[in-house]
């Protein structure tokens, strides 16, 4: 890569962290990590879930103080008292878990991160910047009405508007569509061209290979390698992260001649939110032993579909059938009794109660099963045993035996949630974004779990934005766009292009729709 570091300070690193350590109880989250970022480079920070990436960048952003180690910023020692000081020096960060204010509007959320400026002028700027970067936003909308993908866009736009010298992105593309991702990449290239630097955390190794010319790899809190990702293969990068080879998901072709497990007939649901997407005449079925994938860009009715299937909102009784029984008007517990399991997209708050311990979170979704409650009294030891089994089988890593859900890193929490529901041996699984923000090794493991489940005769429905994932897993794939579902065709009859086109078409229409 030429043209990097055109300034006189070209040889001096922008940021050089040395021997950074941070301990949480018995867990050494960061163990003497060194990291050097040069001006005008996009530097990748790689590692499995729980490797300590988020901890390290939070230290660089001043959110948490390291136990030891030092940071040099443009040649001078930097001791951060808090995020305000980091931002003052020109360090901005997009968080893995959102840091937005739900009841405030998009522009208010942006304003809180910038120096004072009249909101009207700022709205204009937010609109323009987001448009320029292909990250469309409506400045006036309140955050709680927005999808996960849209929220992520706010975070990114908010950082870009701060004109940072170093932009830290903690897994920014996990929830972005392919178009949004390529828009972001163009933005990051532009930022790099201006001599700024980016510290980029992602599990999508192909992305990293395209975007980054330098990388630092962490494993279990230690720095294990630094390399030029463009000279590595995705497999060799993954090997550095995990320390061993990642196995491909073993999929046996052609399953799904079993009986219909999930039948959806003309499911209609007007979205209560005027900006939401209403479901229109959605019909499909999932048979025992098959995996059906639903592709689509976030905000095209995925949340509405999931909540209608899980029973969080009810529909006409016949619109949703499990094993031929009309359950459309029944709630989530009743549907679970038919052997269904539901794994939502949002982990903290929806999939798990953040302040509850893991064993309590097991109880919340599995109560009534497996004798966790006896004569109205909780059997804590049975819960702990179950948790230990989940943690062992699904390799959930955390500092303590039974930590609160919020203390887990994103991927470990996802492994826990998926594990919790799969351990109950469900006959029907409906899962949204099963591997969102999960490292390659864990993602392969989670996908294999879903495949195995289908092989054992369960029906599996996967709602995902990740086309690679859907092509790897699904027997049939349908596309959800603007609340309408295309017919679910066998994987062999479709290509990434044909599906991408259907998804993209929908998105372009959305982007050009007049803003209300």
């Amino acid at each position, binding site marked *: 890569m030429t043209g990097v570091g055109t300034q006189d300070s070209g040889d001096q690193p922008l940021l050089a962290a040395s021997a950074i350590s941070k301990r949480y109880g018995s867990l050494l989250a960061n163990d003497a990590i060194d990291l050097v970022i040069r001006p005008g480079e996009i530097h990748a920070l790689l590692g499995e879930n729980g490797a300590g990436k988020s901890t390290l960048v939070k230290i660089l*952003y001043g*959110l*948490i*103080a390291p136990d030891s180690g030092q940071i040099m910023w443009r040649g001078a020692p930097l001791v951060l008292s*808090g*995020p*305000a*000081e*980091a*931002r*003052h020096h020109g360090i901005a*960060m997009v*968080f893995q878990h*959102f*840091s*937005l*204010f*739900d*009841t*405030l509007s998009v522009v*208010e959320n942006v*304003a*809180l*991160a910038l120096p*004072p400026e009249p909101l009207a002028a700022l709205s204009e700027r937010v609109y323009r910047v987001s448009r320029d970067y292909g990250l469309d936003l409506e400045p006036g909308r*309140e955050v*709680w009405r927005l999808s996960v993908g849209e929220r992520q866009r706010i975070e990114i736009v908010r950082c870009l508007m701060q004109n940072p010298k170093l932009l830290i992105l903690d897994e920014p593309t996990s929830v972005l569509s392919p178009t949004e991702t390529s828009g972001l990449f163009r933005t990051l290239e532009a930022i790099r061209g201006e001599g700024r630097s980016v510290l980029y955390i992602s599990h999508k190794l192909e992305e990293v290979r395209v975007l980054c010319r330098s990388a630092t790899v962490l494993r279990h809190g230690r720095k294990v390698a630094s390399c030029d990702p463009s000279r590595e293969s995705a497999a060799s990068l993954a090997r550095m992260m995990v320390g061993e080879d990642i196995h491909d998901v073993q999929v046996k072709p052609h399953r799904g001649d079993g009986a219909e497990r999930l039948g959806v007939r003309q499911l209609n649901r007007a979205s*209560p*939110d005027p900006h939401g997407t209403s479901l229109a005449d959605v019909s499909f079925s999932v048979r025992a032993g098959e995996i059906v994938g639903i592709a689509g860009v976030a905000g095209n009715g995925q949340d509405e579909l999931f909540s209608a299937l899980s029973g969080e909102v009810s529909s006409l009784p016949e619109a949703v059938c499990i094993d031929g029984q009309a359950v459309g008007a029944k709630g989530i517990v009743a549907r679970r009794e038919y052997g269904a399991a539901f794994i939502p997209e949002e982990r903290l708050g929806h999939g798990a109660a953040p302040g509850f311990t893991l064993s309590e979170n097991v109880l919340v979704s599995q109560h009534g099963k497996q004798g966790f409650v006896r004569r109205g009294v909780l059997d804590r030891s049975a819960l702990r045993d179950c948790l230990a089994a989940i943690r062992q089988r699904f390799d959930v890593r955390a500092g303590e035996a039974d930590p609160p859900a919020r203390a887990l890193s994103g991927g470990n929490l996802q492994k826990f949630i998926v594990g919790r529901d799969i351990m109950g041996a469900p006959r029907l699984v409906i899962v949204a974004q099963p591997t969102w923000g999960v490292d390659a090794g864990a993602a392969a493991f989670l996908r294999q779990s879903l495949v195995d489940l289908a092989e054992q005769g369960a029906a599996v429905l996967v709602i995902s934005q990740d086309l690679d994932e859907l092509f790897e897993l699904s027997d049939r794939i349908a596309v959800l766009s603007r609340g309408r579902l295309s017919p679910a065709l066998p994987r062999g009859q479709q290509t990434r292009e044909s599906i991408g086109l259907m998804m993209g078409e929908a998105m372009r229409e959305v982007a050009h729709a007049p803003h209300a």
Partner: protein
Amino acid sequence: MMIFEAILLTIITAATPLLLAAIGEVVVERSGVLNLGVEGMMIMGAASGFAVAILTGSSLLGVMAGLFAGMAMSLLFAALVLGLAANQVASGLALTIFGLGLSGLVGFPFVGAKREAMAHLYLPYLSDLPFFGRVIFGQDPLVYIAFALVVAVALIISRTRAGLILRAVGENHHSAHALGHNVRQVRLLAILFGGACAGLAGAYLSLVYTPFWTPGMTAGRGWIALAIVVFASWRAGRAVIGAYIFGGVSILQLHAQGFGLGVPAQALAALPYLTTIIVLFALSRLPRGSSRAPACLGQPFLPAR
């Protein structure tokens, strides 16, 4: 005419302390802090205000003393909930109990002392308006101050950057902290403002409403102010409606007893609370968003370092 003027006048005097205390608590709760010590701060304002007014003979100094007494109490609360991240409910209750006790001590030498109520301020021209002009625009200065505070707080919360930061801190203190805002400093200022308002409300009671001191004279008004904040769904403007409903009903119920209406006084006295329940129910039916309690209300904040 005379009787209506008299009733209106007493309603205004009954509503003003409620409004003052409520407007302060609106700001406190918007920052994510639940201060249940309003009653304690209020009664300290009443005792100190009356004591200083008797000693100096100045109503103005009395009012200032009430204000600072409320602030001092709230500083104590802030030290507990911000400095030590103590439980806000327990700290607030303790503050009320402490205030009720301490005010008895402060006010003890002044039991039985008497002074004139604060002079009224007749706004030129406006107080000459026909009908209620003289009542509405011929009030003591604190009534005008209360309304000025409502307008100022409403505008600051909805229109200014300071108000935006206040709302942000109450909505999600972790995010506000991550964006570099000083959560505890914002909350400290909000708590002090709440204390000043409660102290002012107390001084109003002992200097205007009943110009003498008796222990326990706030008689639960601090709690009503807390109910008004919920009734107002954390909006400054709606606090006026709440304060006047609560104040009005408490007065009308007295007059109703005087007229010998067939309705039991207790039923009338319960009206404001019934209204609160109905309003809360109606609010809970609204979609998420503006009418809900601040999401971080009552949660202690300790930045993870």
